[in-house]
């Protein structure tokens, strides 16, 4: 009997690029697994899938995947993806970014991609740090954490990624953690299936940098932290706002039908050019 993960193994550039460069115990591999299992479940053709990344440890993901892949400049992945999507609207575009790449240098492109509600999936792997460069503060580093550029304690407030995405106009926004893999798988799949700008915040950790500076040195301690610090959205609704301080709220935070940018631009072309042949849209499983 075929093992479930044998199918996703087919999607790896395994004879060209492995072993991978991530630390043992890193959560990025789990997010990569969720991505592959989603592609498999949705029965997407590899030629129809593009995975685009920025710079950082998460940015190193696309090279391992046998899709149409781009490793772009720091913070700009969504802008590259926007161009590709307009040129190839029938492609499924998945953009993977770290918290620094997406929200610091990439913050402007993040909010504008959400504003346009352009059909792509943005997976933000949030480990609250700049891991690749050695553990400097990121826009999601918690108050009072110790980092390489905050040796006396980080005195800035973190961005709430999901709230930002919702306020900016994203039509699908969800959050889970690399501990809650089954849930993460489901959210990523929904996000890819969604026709609109879909954001999945995948809470992870960097035990190598953040962990060592903040008394969570092992992957296991970090997994335990994600498990204990998180709460489902349904449970969170029943609680007082102040008791949710520091908690990671998991679940689908928004899933709305909103006008999608490439659909709207097709209308522009019709206005300028006259009726056009509808572009070939792949049938996604359970969704037309």
């Amino acid at each position, binding site marked *: 009997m075929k093992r479930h993960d044998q199918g996703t193994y087919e999607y790896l*550039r395994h004879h*060209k*690029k492995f072993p991978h460069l991530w630390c043992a115990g890193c959560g990025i591999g789990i997010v990569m697994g969720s991505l592959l299992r989603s592609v498999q479940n949705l029965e997407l053709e*590899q*030629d*129809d899938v*593009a995975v*685009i990344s920025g710079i950082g440890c998460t940015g190193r993901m*696309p*090279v391992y995947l*046998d*899709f*149409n*892949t*781009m*490793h*772009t*400049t720091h913070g*700009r992945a969504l*802008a*590259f*993806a*926007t*161009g*590709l*999507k*307009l*040129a*190839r609207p*029938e*492609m499924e575009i998945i953009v993977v970014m770290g918290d620094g790449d997406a929200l610091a240098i990439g913050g*402007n*492109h993040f909010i*504008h991609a959400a504003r346009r509600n352009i059909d792509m999936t943005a997976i933000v792997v949030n480990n609250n740090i700049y891991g690749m460069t050695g553990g400097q503060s990121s826009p999601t580093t918690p108050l009072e954490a110790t980092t390489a550029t905050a040796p006396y304690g980080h005195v800035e407030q973190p961005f709430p990624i999901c709230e930002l995405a919702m306020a900016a106009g994203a039509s699908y926004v969800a959050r889970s953690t690399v501990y809650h893999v089954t849930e993460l798988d489901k959210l990523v799949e929904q996000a890819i299936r969604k026709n609109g700008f879909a954001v999945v915040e995948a809470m992870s950790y960097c035990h190598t940098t953040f962990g060592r500076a903040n008394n969570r040195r092992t992957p296991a301690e970090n997994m335990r932290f994600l498990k204990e610090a998180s709460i489902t959205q349904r449970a969170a609704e029943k609680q007082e706002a102040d008791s949710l301080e520091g908690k990671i709220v998991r679940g689908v935070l928004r899933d709305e039908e909103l006008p999608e940018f490439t659909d709207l*631009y097709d209308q*522009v*072309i019709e*206005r*300028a*050019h006259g009726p*056009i042949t509808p572009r070939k849209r792949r049938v996604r499983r359970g969704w037309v």
Partner: protein
Amino acid sequence: MTVQLLQGNRACALGALAVGCRFFAGYPITPSSEIAEIMSRELPRLGGKFIQMEDEIASIAAVIGASVGGLKAMTATSGPGFSLMQENIGYAVVAEIPCVIVNVMRAGPSTGLPTSPSQGDVMQARWGTHGDHPSIALAPSSVSEAFDLTVAAFNFAEKLRMPVFLLMDEVVGHMRERVDLVEVEPQDIVNREMPTVPPEWYEPFGNPPSDVPPLAPFGEGYRFHVTGLLHDARGFPTSRLDEIQPWVERLFRKVERSQDEICMWEADGVEDARVLVVAYGSTARSARQALKIARARYGRKVGLLILKTLWPFPEQIVAETAENVQRVVVAEMNLGQIALEVERVVGRSKVLRVGRADGQIVTPDQIVDAMRAP
């Protein structure tokens, strides 16, 4: 095509559309905004895609993404936007992605004089992005050339798989001239080469005899990795010397080999000239007038070399043309950027610079004075 009164920026946009550009991403900036506006109107008419991005960095990123998706893609900006684009321009260089970047130069540095012309970004077009890289930059001096050189820019970009710069200045961009545009025939259009091998054998960054590997678009069955990291023939990051060194050499060689085709110029009266004027862009027009004055009023044997290609610098043309002259006057709206190159090639003692960086055009009289100076 019929005779029309056309603005330089408009001619640039029309040239792009005529050669097959079907994607524009840009950001408004004086004096280039007309190009974006015209593309926003004309592209959807042809089923092409236009998007105004949130900034210039996103604009060039989207252009590269669209080109990877198979569309001929362009952006247009001015100095401040050109500065912002440099990092992603370097990405297009390393990833060998064809695209055209128009810089309608205005007086800088910084915000400068938004509505005044300059030719101050010439060296930036050569070395703006970090690292060692070749560069192709064309400079039209008329509305009709704005059309023709935009067509040429796309053809070079597609042939050599790299970003190509069109350096207009505000005068050429905003002026209106009578033009009689000629149809761009299919045989005049260069398209990027497609792979002829099956996907399993495709090397998107390989070493073919032409030095330019074919570029398949995403989504057509060829799956590959595009990265700004230095990479091997398959596109995968490497730090191996035996992969990096040949790659760097090929990056320069692919342009050097086409040098004769890329370097365009126009010469007037250079055969027996004692004084040679070298100019480009709108300054070339002042130079033409200066030549008329010098010949008519002073009976001088003077020649004019109009550079249409600035990079790669046409060393041989300049050296040969200047060989028997006593003086080379280099006139430009900057303080000596192309002059540096001319000095390097013909020797500093022979060269007299006429330059200004105050938002004003170099006048014919300034050039005449330099030709006549003791």
